[in-house]
């Protein structure tokens, strides 16, 4: 593994603009540098006890970018996005959102651990959809979708209801607003979880293996909804962790392959999926092709 800091330095010196997004500067190596990144990971490491899951990740994500993270299970891809939602704390390194450190605050020139008010401010820029939906079982579909806008953002209840109904139409669940989650299928629950997260209007929406817990026949519905939302919400940055490679190819501006705690390869979907450079990625992709042919 080449020293990451060196790579970044090299990239910075030889930046070449390409035409994916006006502000985006693409390097088909292990990192893409932005003039004005929305999210920035700087040498981020994460240990769980003795196990080091992330061994030094540098990653920048742009405004409005649709990014997909792929990698085998245990490679650290879920941990990477959970840290952005403040569900995990990095063991070392820095994560920035809009140039502001997520986990530390400045006080008289000293770096202190972030307090709850700072975390709350930063969290308002991020939303998340979980593998297990995590809807609130004691609330109806409509309540699930309106409670946070009303209580957290102070939206007027009538207006929150109106917005929720519009959003539930987009995910094709408007006929279920008075149902409880336990009356719905997995695919339906996940579409509501997506609506609930989007209604908070986060700048960054994290989607953690949102189709992995679903029966195969429901995966398509959820992916269609996600595809529509990704098309319509141009300003919303979306970071997907997924094993649905065809979906990733269609939806992503960029794909990242994470392996054993490092970003091993990254780039445009075509180059990652059609033309993998590393042996690890080649092996990873061929495993998927085999599975599909079964």
């Amino acid at each position: 593994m080449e020293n990451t800091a060196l790579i970044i330095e090299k990239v910075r010196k030889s930046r070449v603009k390409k035409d994916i997004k006006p502000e985006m500067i693409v390097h088909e190596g292990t990192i893409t540098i932005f003039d004005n990144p929305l999210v920035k990971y700087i040498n981020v490491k994460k240990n769980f006890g003795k196990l080091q899951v992330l061994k030094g990740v540098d990653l920048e994500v742009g405004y409005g970018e649709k990014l997909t993270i792929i990698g085998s299970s245990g490679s650290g891809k879920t941990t990477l996005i959970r840290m952005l939602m403040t569900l995990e704390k990095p063991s070392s390194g820095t994560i920035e959102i809009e140039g502001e450190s997520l986990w530390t605050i400045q006080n008289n020139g000293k770096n202190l651990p972030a307090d709850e008010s700072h975390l709350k401010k930063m969290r308002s820029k991020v939303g998340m959809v979980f593998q297990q939906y995590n809807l609130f079982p004691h609330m109806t579909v409509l309540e699930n979708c309106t409670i946070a806008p009303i209580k957290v953002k102070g939206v007027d209840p009538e207006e929150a209801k109106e917005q929720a109904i519009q959003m539930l139409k987009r995910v094709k669940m408007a006929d279920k607003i008075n149902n409880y989650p336990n009356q719905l299928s997995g695919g339906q629950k996940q579409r509501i979880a997506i609506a609930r997260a989007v209604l908070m209007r986060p700048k960054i929406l994290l989607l953690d293996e949102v189709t992995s817990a679903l029966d195969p026949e429901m995966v398509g519905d959820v992916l269609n909804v996600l595809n529509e939302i990704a098309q319509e919400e141009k300003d919303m940055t979306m970071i997907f962790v997924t094993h649905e490679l065809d979906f990733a190819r269609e939806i992503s501006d960029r794909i990242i392959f994470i392996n054993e705690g490092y970003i091993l390869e990254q780039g445009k979907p075509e180059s990652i999926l059609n033309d993998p450079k590393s042996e690890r990625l080649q092996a990873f992709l061929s495993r998927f092709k085999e599975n599909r042919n079964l």
Partner: protein
Amino acid sequence: MWSWSFTFKVLPKLLSAAKITFIATILGFLLASFLGLVWTLLKRTKIHWISKSTTAIVEFIRRTPLLIQLFFLYYTLPNFNIRLPALTVGIIGLGLHYSTYLSEVYRAGIESVEKEQWEAAKSLNFTSYQTWTLVILPQAIPPVIPMMGNYLITLFKETPLLAAISVVELLQEAKIIGSEYFQYLEVFTLVGVIFFIFSYPSSLLVQYLEIKFKSPAEKRI
């Protein structure tokens, strides 16, 4: 031996003393429910000395007899210039003692809520107060309502201990009447019957609630 006329003569007196028993039960239980939740939340704070000292206090109260606590409150509070009616002291004693049991019940309820619910609340940027009141407690409490009901019945059956600190509740009234007429059979039988009449239907209600809340897993997602 058994005198029906005597029975009907003392019944109104006993029933009016039963009112005191009910007041002590209801208010004691309300206090216990409130304090129990306070203990549980304090035990879970991240501020170490608060959680440790709460645990120590709760363990101490739970591991010592209620009767001693009642005596302690009744005879030592006046030393601190706190003069309360015996019934009030009794309610505080019952509430305090049972709060330590209810604290464990709440803990069980809270731990039954999946950790993903906390994460969902965080992802929607709830404050910790909102997370507790909107997400965790509404899911934690219903499944433990039957357990709470059992403690309510147990507390009810322990109210005769208040007789020891001169509260004229059901048992104390029975003793007074008995010694007045030198006739104990009817009064103590009635006391037993009155306790049974209220505790048995309550236990049936708890059984019903247990069935009603039996499968919290099915209610989860």
